[in-house]
C-alpha cells in the first residue's frame, strides 16, 4: 500500500513537471494585457493579432513547405538505409555507412549547421551553386539530419519483421522487386508514416541548423519566433505556442498510433 502511494506520487509529480510549463503558456495566451505577465482578463485578442501578422504567417508557410519536402526526401532515403542495413548483406565499407547514417543523431546541431554553411559557401566558390542561401539550402540540411531518425525507425521495424512472409512470396514466384513493393513496404507502411511524421516535426522545429543555412527570403517559423522572444516576451508568440503545441501534440499522437500498430 505504501509503495503504491510512492509510485502514484512519483508519476503524478513527473507528469506535472512535464505539463505545467505547457499549461502556463496556453493560459497566458488568453491574457488581454500586452505585458505578458500581468493578468488583465480573458481575451482572444492575441490570436487575432497573430492571424494578421504577415511575417509570422509567411514564415509558417515557408516552414511547412520545407518540412513536408525534407520529410519526404528523408523518408525515402531513410527507408533505403534501414532496408539496406537489415536486408542487404554486401554494403561496401559498411562501418562507414553506419557511421554516416547514425552520427547525425548525436552530433550537436551547431556543428552540423556550421559544416553545412561552410560547405555551401565552398560549393558556391567552386561551381557557383548555390548562388545564395535560402529555402533550398535549409531543405538539403534538414534532409541530411532527418535521414538518421527515419532509418532508425525502419531498421527497428525490419528487425522485428517475420522474414518467412517474404520468403513465401518468393517461393510463390514473386521476384525481388515485387516482394519489396507488394509485401515488405505495405507491411512496414505504418512505420514509414511514423518516420515521415518524426522528420516533419524535427524539420519544423529546427532553429539552429536553419539559422546557419538560411538566406534572404527564407525566415522559417522558429527563426522568426526566436528573434521575437530572445530578449523578452511576446503575447503573439504565446498565442502561436498554444496553437502549435496543440497541432504538434496531435501529430505526436498519430505517430504513436502508427508506430504502435505493428507491436501487438
Amino acid at each position: 500500500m505504501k509503495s503504491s502511494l510512492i509510485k502514484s506520487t512519483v508519476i503524478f509529480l513527473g507528469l506535472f513537471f512535464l505539463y505545467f510549463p505547457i499549461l502556463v503558456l496556453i493560459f497566458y495566451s488568453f491574457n488581454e494585457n500586452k505585458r505578458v505577465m500581468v493578468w488583465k482578463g480573458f481575451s482572444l485578442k492575441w490570436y487575432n493579432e497573430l492571424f494578421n501578422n504577415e511575417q509570422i504567417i509567411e514564415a509558417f508557410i515557408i516552414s511547412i513547405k520545407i518540412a513536408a519536402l525534407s520529410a519526404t526526401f528523408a523518408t525515402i532515403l531513410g527507408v533505403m538505409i534501414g532496408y539496406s542495413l537489415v536486408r542487404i548483406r554486401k554494403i561496401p565499407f559498411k562501418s562507414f555507412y553506419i557511421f554516416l547514417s547514425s552520427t547525425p543523431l548525436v552530433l550537436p546541431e551547431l556543428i552540423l549547421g556550421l559544416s553545412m554553411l561552410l560547405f555551401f559557401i565552398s560549393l558556391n566558390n567552386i561551381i557557383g551553386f548555390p548562388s545564395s542561401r535560402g529555402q533550398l539550402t535549409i531543405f538539403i540540411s534538414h534532409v541530411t539530419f532527418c535521414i538518421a531518425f527515419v532509418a532508425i525507425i525502419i531498421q527497428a521495424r525490419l528487425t522485428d519483421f517475420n522474414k518467412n512472409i517474404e520468403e513465401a512470396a518468393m517461393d510463390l514466384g514473386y521476384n525481388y522487386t515485387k516482394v519489396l513493393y507488394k509485401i515488405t513496404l505495405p507491411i512496414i507502411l505504418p512505420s514509414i508514416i511514423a518516420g515521415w511524421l518524426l522528420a516533419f516535426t524535427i524539420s519544423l522545429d529546427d532553429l539552429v541548423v536553419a539559422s546557419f543555412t538560411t538566406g534572404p527570403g527564407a525566415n522559417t517559423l522558429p527563426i522568426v519566433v526566436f528573434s521575437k522572444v530572445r530578449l523578452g516576451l511576446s503575447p503573439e508568440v504565446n498565442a502561436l505556442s498554444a496553437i502549435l503545441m496543440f497541432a504538434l501534440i496531435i501529430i505526436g499522437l498519430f505517430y504513436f498510433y502508427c508506430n504502435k500498430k505493428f507491436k501487438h
Partner: protein
Amino acid sequence: MKNKLFEKYFVFSPYFWLVLFFFIPLAIIFKISISVSEWGMPPYQDIFLFDNGFKINTTFENYVYIFSDYYYIGSFVNSLILALISTFFCLLIGFPLAFYIATSNIRLRNILLVLVVIPFWSSFLLRVYAWKIILQNNGILNVILLNLGIISEPLQLLYNQYAVIMGIVYTYLPLMILPLYGYLNKFDLNLIEASKDLGLNRIKTFFKVILPLSLPGIVAGSLLVFIPVVGEFIIPEMLGGSDRLYYGKILWEEFFVNRNWPGASALAFSGIIILVLPIVIFQILYSRWSQKNEI
C-alpha cells in the same frame, strides 16, 4: 542480375547523399580549421597554393590559439559541467518515472508512456520559452512563493546557470526516459521478488539487481542527453545570463561576430573529436563487454 542493380540503387542513393551532404561538410570543417586565417572573403587562405609551384599551406595555429586561451577552454569545461549536472538530474527524475511506468499494468503503461513523450513532440523553442515566462521576476513561480510567504521580494530566477539547467532538464527529460523505459520494460519483475525472498532489503535490491540490469538504458539515455547538451545554444541564450559562457555560444560568436572561420572550425572539429569519437570507441568497448558478460 536484376536484384543486384536494385540493391545497388538502395544502398548507394542514401550513401551518395550522406557522403556529399554530411561527410564532405565535415571534411570542409577540418580543412578550414587548418587554414591560415586572413582578412578578406572568405577569411582564410587556401590550403593548396599553385602560384609559385605547388605548396601546401596549412597550420595548426588555430588549434594552438584555442587550446592556449582560457576563454575557449573554460567555456568548453563549463559546457561539460553543465551537461554532467543536467544528465544527472535527468537521470534522477527520469529513473523513478521510467521504473514506475515500466512496472505499471499494460494498459496504464502505454498511456503513461505516450503522456511522457508527447511534450517532446511540441516545439522545443516554445518549451524553453515557457520557462522564461515561469521564471520571470513577476512570473508565476515568484508569485506563488510570495503569496506563500516564503520570500518577501521576487527572486532573480532567470538569466543564470540554474535557469539553464532547469530548461535543459525539462526539455531533455523524455530523451532520458525513453531508453530507460525500453530496458526496464524487458526486465522480469519476478527478479525483484526473488531478491527480496532471498533476504536482500530494498536498497540492496536496487543496487544489486535493478541498477545493473538497467545499466544499458542508463548509458543510452545519458549519452542522448549529454552530447547534445554540450553543444546546446538556444537554452543558454534564452534562459542564461552572462555569468557563464558555454561552448555553443563561443562557437556561434567566433563565426558570426568575430568572423574567424578557421577558429570556429577548429572549435567545431575539436568538439567532434572530443564528443563523438569517445562514443564510437565506447560503443565498441561496451558491446564487447556486454557480449562477454552474457555468455
